[in-house]
């Protein structure tokens, strides 16, 4: 386990992630509140944050559970939302080839929107794999810990926060914070427009299947847009494919 560990890089990664956790805290609180209001026990709500460790999947699971959707639909929705991790995984994979299996598993477990966003550039630019992996794990560990603390806060304080504060609005805002910067790219604007129109047009579909269908429509539109504009317009985001 020591072979991929560099203590200074781990601490640096942890420190760089601290400001990002502040944005994650309200989201984690909402996930804690959501799980409890969906009927989960406090232990189950915390276990969900510890094991699933994905705000999008957790909030969707909680919402569908509260709406009485069948297990298969909840699982399918969470699966579709988790597809974005395939992209992060693919982007990280070329750099992790020399890393041993236990470290790969650890990196995979800690792979989130924030951890990916904050460390992919470092993997691309620095050849020091030992330091890069440690940096990533340091940041990921801080995120995981902050996520648990926020969930506990949500479980404890959820009942106290007045509904007029509209704390649940933090969830779309968190996603918006990741989504809006993507729209500097032309293809992403087309993906956004298509998925947005589809999400509204298909809203009447049962069991929120509209979310899955709108997402798929957006992906197809993006692939078509690549064909039309050529790949050069969008190749910036993704290394190694």
């Amino acid at each position, binding site marked *: 386990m020591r072979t991929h560990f560099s203590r200074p890089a781990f601490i640096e990664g942890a420190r760089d992630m601290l400001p990002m956790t502040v944005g994650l805290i309200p989201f984690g609180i909402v996930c804690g509140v959501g799980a409890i209001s969906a009927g989960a026990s406090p232990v189950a709500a915390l*276990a*969900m944050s510890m094991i699933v460790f994905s705000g999008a999947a957790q909030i969707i699971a909680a919402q569908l559970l509260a709406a009485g959707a069948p297990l298969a639909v909840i699982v399918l929705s969470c699966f579709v939302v988790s597809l974005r991790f395939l992209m992060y*995984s693919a982007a990280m994979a070329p750099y992790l080839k020399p890393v041993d299996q236990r470290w790969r598993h650890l990196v995979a477990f800690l792979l989130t929107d924030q951890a990916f966003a904050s460390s992919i550039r470092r993997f691309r630019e620095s050849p020091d794999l030992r330091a890069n992996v440690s940096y990533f794990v340091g940041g990921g560990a801080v995120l995981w810990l902050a996520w648990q603390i926020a969930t506990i806060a949500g479980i404890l304080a959820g009942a106290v926060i007045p509904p007029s504060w509209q704390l649940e609005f933090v969830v779309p805002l968190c996603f918006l914070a990741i989504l809006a910067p993507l729209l500097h790219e032309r293809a992403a604007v087309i993906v956004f427009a298509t998925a947005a129109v589809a999400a509204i047009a298909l809203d009447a579909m049962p069991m929120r299947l509209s979310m899955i269908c709108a997402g798929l429509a957006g992906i197809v539109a993006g692939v078509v847009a690549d064909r039309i504009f050529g790949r050069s317009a969008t190749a910036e985001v993704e290394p190694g494919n």
Partner: protein
Amino acid sequence: MIWALIFIVGAINFAARLSFIALFARREMPPLLARALRHVPAAMLTAIVVPAIVFVAPGALSLDAGNVKLIAALVAGVVAWRWRNTLLTIGVGMVALWLLQWLMR
């Protein structure tokens, strides 16, 4: 039901995160799949965010200035697009929502 859900969704998320890290060490990804996956974040985030903003109640679409969530989200969206800062986006979005609700009372 909840515990089954936790373990299944947890397993799915871990599998998605590990997928190419585990497989890709030996294989190359099909180019079409790579291109499609690149659009997943924008597509899925849109499919999650937009309904949460434009529907004021289940099935009740509101695209006018009377929808305070829509206006607050547009303001927050511009802030996120320009400054790429999560905390600033959440702060501006929540303050905009509270302010608009207070104004409309």
